[in-house]
């Protein structure tokens, strides 16, 4: 394994150009925290961009930050936190789920595009990436977007880069939108609801004028008693349905009161405030009940996105068929499913059931041999797959970048 640790964007461009000339595919890494997601890559050369770690500029009043792609996410988060700002899409920390040590880099955050609970209100990584400089598989340094929020100049290639898992271009610098942190947060907590009732409660809350910024449901589980971050809400693994309100203190408190009345038919909600509320949502964001170090650490984990109101019906069916454990986020529109180990990680059932409701399922955690035998990413309809491949080839015609990560090689 040859690791090339580039010092700057110029180095990076030269490495990619040399790789193209040699037809040598490259695996692109920052801190390598998400290397376990996707298929094993058909290469033995690693391009490490973690040395491109500078903060180019941070302008709190403009609500933007420009960073090199290798900037450590932890440092960036603490920098913007010092100005009372945040990435509103709540990027997930995959380290606990995957059992890796660090938070990773900004480039990895964008390339994976894994947004947290506020996705339903504030959008995902795609909605916060304003501009990027990158090196394509043509060996060309190009830029797209800009440093302002409102911009329709040319095609929005940022959208393609976000969530591309490094298969289109190697980002060198990105400009991201930052947002003020809410002054206060309040979480309403309902206990003991089954999945169907919880989905109804979340739908009612998200359809209300109370500006709910997150809605999640943790079904009854025998495995959750020791999960950190849940504090005294963990109980004995009883079902928890949680709804978050954020904003200025008076408003969050007022809306929490109104929402509690609205949800009275589902039970009497209790209130969790500020730090305890934050800890609770970090637990959900990072899927700590399924942490690699926990009781379900050896189980494969699926990430399913579906129409939110279909969540409970889909999840209940999947749990029944597989004996798995679930966590619902995004008002039912995101289901984390940890399933008992099996050679194919229950892939046929996951794909069939998710697809039937217009959803899709990604195998975010599984042993390498399992990932060799099933598709990690949800297979697409033939026309979309063909168009996506043409788009990919328009960035990287020789498939130099992260070859094989998104799709199993035909030989496997």
């Amino acid at each position, binding site marked *: 394994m040859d690791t090339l640790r580039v010092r700057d964007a110029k180095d990076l461009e030269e490495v990619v150009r040399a790789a193209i*000339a040699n037809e040598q595919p490259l695996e692109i890494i920052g801190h390598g925290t998400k290397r376990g997601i996707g298929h094993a890559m058909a290469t033995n050369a690693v391009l490490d961009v973690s040395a491109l770690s500078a903060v180019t500029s941070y302008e709190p009043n403009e609500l933007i930050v420009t960073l090199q792609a290798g900037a450590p996410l932890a440092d960036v988060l603490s920098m913007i936190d010092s100005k009372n700002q945040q990435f509103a899409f709540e990027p997930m920390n995959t380290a606990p789920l995957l059992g890796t040590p660090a938070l990773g880099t900004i480039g990895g955050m964008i390339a994976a595009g894994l947004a947290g609970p506020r996705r339903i209100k504030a959008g995902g990584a795609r909605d916060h990436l304003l501009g990027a400089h990158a090196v394509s598989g043509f060996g060309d340094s190009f830029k*797209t977007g800009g440093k302002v929020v409102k911009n329709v100049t040319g095609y929005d290639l940022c959208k393609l880069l976000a969530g591309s898992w490094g298969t289109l271009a190697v980002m060198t610098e990105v400009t991201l939108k930052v947002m003020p942190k809410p002054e206060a947060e309040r979480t309403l907590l309902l206990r003991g609801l089954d999945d169907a009732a919880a989905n109804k409660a979340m739908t009612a809350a998200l359809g209300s004028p109370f500006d709910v910024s997150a809605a999640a449901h943790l079904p009854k589980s025998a495995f959750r008693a020791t999960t950190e971050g849940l504090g005294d809400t963990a109980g004995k693994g009883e079902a928890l349905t949680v709804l978050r309100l954020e904003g200025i203190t008076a408003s969050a408190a007022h809306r929490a009161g109104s929402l509690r009345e609205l949800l009275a038919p589902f039970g009497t909600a209790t209130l969790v405030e500020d730090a305890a509320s934050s800890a609770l949502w970090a637990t959900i964001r990072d899927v700590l009940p399924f942490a690699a170090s926990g009781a379900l650490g050896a189980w494969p984990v699926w990430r399913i996105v579906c129409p939110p109101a279909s969540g409970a019906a889909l999840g209940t069916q999947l749990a029944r068929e597989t004996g798995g454990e679930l966590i619902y986020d995004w008002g039912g529109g995101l289901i984390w499913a940890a399933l008992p180990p099996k050679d194919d990680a229950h892939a046929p059932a996951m794909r069939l059931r998710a697809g039937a409701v217009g959803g899709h399922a990604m195998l975010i955690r599984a042993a390498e041999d399992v990932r060799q035998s099933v598709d990690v990413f949800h297979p697409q*309809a033939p026309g979309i797959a063909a168009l996506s491949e043409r788009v990919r080839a328009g960035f990287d015609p020789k498939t130099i970048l992260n070859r094989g990560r998104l799709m199993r090689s035909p030989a496997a």
Partner: protein
Amino acid sequence: MAIMMPASDQAVLARRAEIVAALRAIVPGEGVIDSAAEMRAYESDGLTAYRQPPMVVVLPDTTEQVSLVLKYCAGQGIKVVPRGSGTSLSGGALPLEDGVLLGLGKFKRIREIDFDNRVVVTEPGVTNLAISQAVAHAGFYYAPDPSSQIACSIGGNVAENSGGVHCLKYGMTTNNVLGCEIVLMSGEILRIGGKGCENPGYDLMGVITGSEGLLGVITEITVRILQKPETARALMVGFAQVEAAGECVARIIGAGIIPGGMEMMDKPAIHAAEAFVHAGYPLDVEALLIIELDGPKIEVDELITRVEAIANGCGSTTCQISTSEAERNLFWAGRKAAFPAVGRISPDYLCMDGTIPRGALPKALARIRDLSEKYQLGCANVFHAGDGNLHPLILYDANKPGEIERAEAFGADILRACVEFGGVLTGEHGVGIEKRDLMPEMFSEIDLNQQQRIKCAFDAQGLLNPGKVFPTLHRCAELGRMHVHAGKLAFPDIPRF
């Protein structure tokens, strides 16, 4: 016409009668328009300085017809220009002499309203406002609100990634669209996304949004809808200097407040608007801010107090706070009528659309004043101040020789200044033909080639809406070719671990 469009294909024009007949076989009845008189309605969009009748107009009413029309045109090498309501301000729907104009006006049906999933599935010809109206009874609305919302179609909004006054807080079209049905130039029908938050694979919906009708023809759209805020109130704040108004905008954002809308007008715009709608705007100020806060009443009341204090701290000379819906609407009336109001004081005007970092507002205004002097043309400025989106209105008289050319040169200089100050050529109106030839001010040839390779992935023949967005057209085969870079065949000398 000052701008060069792709050369007309004489062979196609010579076969016009045959092409019209073939299109009639696909779209029967009144769906094909070929008389010069009737086609005149389609010769221009909202950028009325440019006019060109199309070869023929087709108005299909099913996805299958759209597919057959495109497949036929692709097979025959005929160019196609898609059109929604024709309100583009950048010439995105300007027809081509040898092209089929494909109007989506018959796609007028809202297909599904799904309150549980908070989405509306709609045909592209439905107007932006009609979506909000269709869900208003349940307290919902569709957030992006371009000024043309009573007329503009949602399909056009997706094509242009339209914004509006409220996009500072609620995002642009791209942040509010979940999926679509799209027909490629080949006639292939694809479905992308749906009612879920995210789509698998590359974000094709994201790159289609704002692609200005060059990638495909959208025949169905899924948008997300939101609950209407409980209440909204506005402040109208006057300043003796533009700089103070700019500072006020920066401090509001800096205080962590994201207003529903935050608009600025300069003195010429204030005077024109006041003369037109009598909104009670102060006439002795250099800049006026309209700041709207929306949400629960308790929150709005608190934020109004905070914003008022910030405005006072920035030296505001007048500050009115709306106490009723009627008063709030009155504050907005002048701003919303700013374009027609300017139309009353000048025979013609050009509306520009650059975006700059908020902090560069005073600098940009000073530059515009200098340019106004240089070109000897007046300019009224309205801004979406919260997101730095400028709409300078350049006043000219098309009947005076040389004024339109001077106005265009003035406008181009403003956009160059936007890029110089760290901004972009267009915030919400699109590139179209209007800003096409300025694209190299912002993007290198490499940047533009990378964008055009996306075009090739969707439309390899380059038949869909050619001549828009890109100043130079390349053949896809040329764009796909690899260049050997300086013959460097070995990895460079860098640390290895």
